[in-house]
């Protein structure tokens, strides 16, 4: 019962401006040109250009007719939780340190794949694998494999 009412409140609250909060730094500056509103009603101010690696988002941002504006910046509603969305945006923006991402990296990677952001998903995957602390393969062996693989690369 609690869960239902909570999700219900969350989805309702995103529709009511009074319940919407602005995300904390660095997604609160007003010099951004798009606002992503997460499902739990947090506004993320960011640049369209940072999302343009995703064909899905590019299409979404260009074709959607925003129903609401915040200071003249169009608001696009997203159906993703704010924690994961914040993580994704950290990875999208090259000027933000993605290591501060607090969301589970697997969720962030899945979200990136959901919007078809391969380069971002790759960056998340790299960090995730480094976090896992894989058993140490000797570096000379890795070098050999790398050489053989790069010979295989086309051109």
């Amino acid at each position, binding site marked *: 019962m609690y869960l239902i009412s909570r999700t219900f409140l969350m989805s309702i609250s995103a529709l009511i401006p009074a319940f919407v909060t602005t995300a904390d730094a660095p997604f609160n500056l007003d010099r951004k040109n798009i606002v992503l509103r997460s499902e739990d009603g947090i506004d993320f101010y960011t640049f369209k250009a940072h999302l343009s690696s995703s064909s899905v988002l590019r299409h979404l941002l260009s074709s959607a007719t925003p129903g609401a504006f915040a200071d003249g910046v169009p608001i696009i509603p997203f159906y993703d939780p704010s924690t994961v969305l914040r993580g994704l945006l950290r990875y999208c923006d090259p000027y933000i340190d993605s290591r501060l991402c607090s969301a589970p990296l697997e969720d962030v990677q899945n979200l990136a794949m959901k919007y078809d952001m391969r380069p971002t998903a790759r960056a998340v995957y790299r960090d995730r694998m480094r976090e896992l602390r894989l058993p140490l393969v000797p570096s000379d*062996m890795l070098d050999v494999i790398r050489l053989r693989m790069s010979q295989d690369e086309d051109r």
Partner: protein
Amino acid sequence: MRTDEDLCLAAAITFAYENEVPTEMVDVDLVTRDQFDSLMRYRTECRAKAASVASPEYNHFTWMSPSYNWFKPGEEHDSNCNFGGNLFIASVQGKSRSRIWWRSYIYEAKSRLETRPWGSTVTSGDFFDQALKEGSQCRCCRENLDRDFRQFTNIFADKIDEAVSQARYRISLSGNLSLTSVFGVGFVDVGRPSIRAQFISIFSSIDMPYCFSDLFTIHRFYSLPLSHIALLEYHLFIVKFIQLSVKGKRVQKNSFPLMAFPHHDSDMPKKSTSSVHNVGKDKPAFGSRCVCPLSTDFW
């Protein structure tokens, strides 16, 4: 183009997993599907090579020295230092006898090399310490054990690295080579999605000198790696072989050899006489009019 770091990471991930490697790295484009397949095959081969050092054929350890204490005849050992089985060492005549603690070390090393195929696997770890501990309980094995066993494992590790370095990284072709039996048309579907192209050859119209020159045209045209060209060459050899065995009639020498493509129904072999024996006789001449030139827009 992948960075070296990505390739290293992909290799490290592949070798870190014991069994199945999740294909996420292909999903996020860290490596291509072909590279992933090659890596997996390379891993399997490395593991086999490494394990074969610890458990060679016929129990014949060619790289080992017979002078170690633990290979000395059984009478010199303590009664609690059990016999661990026979083995053959290098060029020593007859069987040599090993101790059980040494044997269990080698067995454990083998099973570990099957997941971590590199030399440093065997020079440390709990099973290494265990072997030292068990070996030092025997009066005969104990002598110079620390020095000898470390020396032995270092040679062992070198041999493993040497064996693993002989594993070959094979470039994976997701395409396959198949000869269809119906029209005598061979399909070679070459690799990478980016440059996927299907080459069709009809064997009655093939003439070898033409083909080889055209392979290089293809090489230039599609920037195919030479390994693919080698595959095509192989394909053409098979085609030539079939051509000779069927002894079908040859068509014009100057017809375009590789990419002939039937344009009309009349170019197809007649159905009624399509038994194996008269394939050659009834084959219509795939002449100049069914030539399909190398053009990019066709593909």
